């Protein structure tokens, strides 16, 4: 029994996304989703560090694989009201966009999570989209300025920055 894994499963259910870990894009989507909901106030306490594709938590990877093999029973548990409202607030950000392929969604969430991480933990000023684009490139992420501007606006729309 582990409260964190139960919380993770409940949060994913509230967001309406499956815990599918069968391919890399799905796992990347889950990593960035959990990073963003943690930052928005659902405190699952997964520690995230910057790695090849932005914020990444090995502990979360382990739990996602465990959840996928159905080890945690969440019957009888509900998420608290505040966390449910946070999940609903972030739903527009996390949900699929029309005709969005998993790889495209993974890339979109990678950008959102990476921008947020660089802003909060590396002091990158998101008021300057060009600087943010350059910082992303310095960290091996190549997004154009228009993508970055749109992503910053989406983070603002859900009060994440």
């Amino acid at each position: 029994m582990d409260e964190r894994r139960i919380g993770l499963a409940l949060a994913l259910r509230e967001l309406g996304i499956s815990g599918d870990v069968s391919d890399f894009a799905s796992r990347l989507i889950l990593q960035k989703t959990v990073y963003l909901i943690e930052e928005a106030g659902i405190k699952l306490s997964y520690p995230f560090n910057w790695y090849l594709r932005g914020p990444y938590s090995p502990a979360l990877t382990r739990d996602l694989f465990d959840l996928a093999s159905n080890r945690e029973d969440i019957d009888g548990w509900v998420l608290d009201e505040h966390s449910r409202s946070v999940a609903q607030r972030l739903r527009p950000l996390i949900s699929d966009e029309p005709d969005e392929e998993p790889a495209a969604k993974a890339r979109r969430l990678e950008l959102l999570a990476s921008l947020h991480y660089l802003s909060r933990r590396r002091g990158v000023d998101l008021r300057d989209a060009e600087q943010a684009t350059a910082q992303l490139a310095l960290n091996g992420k190549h997004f154009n300025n228009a993508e970055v501007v749109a992503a910053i606006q989406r983070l603002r729309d859900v009060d994440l920055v």
Partner: protein
Amino acid sequence: MGKLIVDSIHGDIRLTDEERGVIDTASFQRLRSLKQLGMGQVTYPGATHTRFAHSIGVLGIMARVTDIAREALGLKDDQVKNIRLAGLLHDIGHYPYSHLMEVIDNVILTEDFVGSDPKTLDASKDKYQDHEEIGELIVTQQGDILAALGGEQRAKQIADLFRRNETADPQLSKLIHSSLDMDRLDYLIRDTKAAGVPYGQIDLNYLINSLRVSKSGVIGVERKAITALEHFALARFFMHKAVYFHKTTFGIEEACRQLLRRCKNAASHGVPISSREVREIVTGEALGTFTDAFVDRIIQNATADRDECIRSLAQSIQNRRTPKLVKQVVELGAEDGKGRLFKSECKHQLSELAARLGIHVGRFLYATTKPLAVEKRGGRLDVRAARDLESEERDELMKVFIGENDEPISLVDVPETLLHHLGSQRWFAHRLYIVDNGNPELVVRAREAVAKWDT
């Protein structure tokens, strides 16, 4: 190179003046008061070795690894110094009794587990940070460590390395990701010696002498050492079964986790009630008191608590009347449904059983071990899925150089290995304990009652 330390596992380890400066700080000396195996000495009396000795041991291994990597990667002196320091400091953020206290926010109290009424999981509440985050706080905010490292910028660099942040040093990133499990090379052999069991006796020198570093900085072993690497993986598996998940140790640690969680919920006996309180301790003068004795005092005080359950748990730990295993259901490989059935029966029948026995339901402890596999990720994957792993995930797997390939491949991908075939097997145990506090009648009655809860 300056001072020489003689280590019981690795022999002579030469320290730089800077490493000596770090070791001599009060912040680092705290690790002398944290037992490496938590409450493992309850089962294995000799297992009283400390995080301090382990940290020195990891430095010793890192020194050997960097000697190998220096030439292959063309590492500069500063990079070698940094990675050695990261090895030395990787455990500086451990809580009292290590993982035991760190995870109390994840503990489900028995009364929240049983019954069918909906329970609310409050994910908005603040939780303790993990030990690597605490380690970063100590390294970047404790004056003595900052002084020993020459300032905040350097301290942040070192913390980024042991936290495996890629931005710390892109050239070292892969080396860190594939090498910080040098941690395991030390603790397996140190723990096996201290506990007096044979299961973790790995071929350390052969493994280290067979290490190679690829041009991209990934560490692997040469093909000739595959057997030693398989043995290492199996040693880890058996050490978990025999020592880390030993039923007696696991039982008393679960009692302690539940006790600390109850005290945290009740804001009693000095258990920090928030991560803010933990941060205040570890960044202030009280850091030196944040040792195993910190939890020992909580247990001592709680033996006189007004709450019957808290009192029973504390007395059980204090008097070493370890919780008795009522029943264990083990799964290996494919789930056969017995574990799930046992858990369900516990969930629905424990309250009634506690009432029949005349005890608080919190004196029953239901807990599961972490799923255990011979390879860290292998146990969660079939071979096809393992091939789909991307860099972040793959870097955590053990690697081997095959043929003339420049880059090593994962051991689970080598068909001639046991891990290739057993990698997806997992060992997993459901355990139910009772805190009997010296009343054997309770244990007998409980065992009779649950005997068929998995059939």
